[in-house]
């Protein structure tokens, strides 16, 4: 059969559907960039009523000087070793009450993770970038230990569980379940990171 009047017109009626399909695809897949960073709690202004006596061996002191050098427990330390040292301190379990600790049980180091405190002190001249690196390593030490315990108890990483728990898109049934697990792991290694007031340099 011969065709008359040239090629037939293409039906463009479904083009809009295709366009909407693409639009919805992009709507679903693009995530608007969210900021990320290190979450910290500042100590409240009023000191606690009861004076708590903390044994020196339960405090892990980290000092940053103005040129970015670290003084950890009265000795100079390279920043790259800080995480290992912090883990060793937190995981020590000196008094034997901590069943899950895998440290050396050194009597001269921390008693158990609930008592271990990391004290961070910095100079006014310290660069912010250095300070963040130190904060990152200390938070990383806690996260490493919490991940280890979460793996042992629940078979998945703590950081992953926490991220899912904090994500508002997670359904609340899963969130309730995660909340318990997250709090349990946090309880095993409570984050006790004290930031002393800044020293003035001379």
């Amino acid at each position, binding site marked *: 059969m011969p065709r008359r009047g040239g090629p037939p017109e293409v039906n463009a009626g479904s083009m809009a559907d295709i366009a909407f399909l693409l639009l919805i695809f992009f709507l679903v897949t693009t995530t608007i960039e969210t*900021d990320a960073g290190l979450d910290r709690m500042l100590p409240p202004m009023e000191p606690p009523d009861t004076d708590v006596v903390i044994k020196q061996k339960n405090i892990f002191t980290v000092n940053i000087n103005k040129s970015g050098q670290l003084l950890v427990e009265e000795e100079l330390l390279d920043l*790259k070793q800080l995480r290992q040292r912090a883990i060793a301190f937190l995981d020590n379990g000196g008094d034997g009450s901590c069943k899950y600790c895998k440290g050396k049980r050194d009597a001269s180091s921390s008693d158990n993770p609930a008592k271990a405190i990391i004290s961070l002190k910095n100079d006014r001249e310290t660069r912010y970038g250095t300070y963040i*690196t130190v904060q990152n390593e200390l938070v990383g030490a806690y996260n490493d230990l919490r991940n280890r315990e979460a793996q042992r108890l629940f078979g998945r990483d703590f950081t992953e569980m926490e991220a899912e728990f904090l994500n508002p898109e997670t359904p609340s049934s899963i969130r309730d379940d995660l909340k318990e697990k997250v709090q349990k792991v946090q309880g095993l290694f409570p984050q006790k990171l004290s930031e002393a007031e800044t020293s003035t340099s001379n």
Partner: protein
Amino acid sequence: MAKFNKKKDGDLPAVSTASLPDIVFMLLFFFMTVTTMKDSSLMVQNTLPNASEVKKLEKKDRVLYIYVGKPTREYQKVFGTEPKIQLNDKFANVSEVGDFILQERAKKPQELQNVLTTAMKVDKDANMGLISDIKQELRKVNALKVNYTTYEGDAFRNLQ
């Protein structure tokens, strides 16, 4: 032979442009969704440090921002090159931080006022002295939850 002559040559049918608006709208919507609105233009240099143990800041409505860094080139003549604090659209002193937090907190709905986070966007070359002063101010107004906003990456790159 006569069969082929029936095709009129040089007379192509017009391409339908009925779907052109759809395509344009699609592009429009795409750009509308991926664009994030900046609520204040930066007046300070703001190269954030890197960190690997980051947490995402969800729920933008409960975050207050404080920017710290050297003034950008156009402001350097007036404000010098020492790191300054930027609150909303203007430079501020350390003493104004507390008032700013209280003001912004009052603007938020009642149920959010206790769960606000202060995001500190600080240039990595700033000194800790200024940051400590800000932290002290935040403690005074009981804004204890802070987030040091960083890029995700290797933290040791900050040292260079």
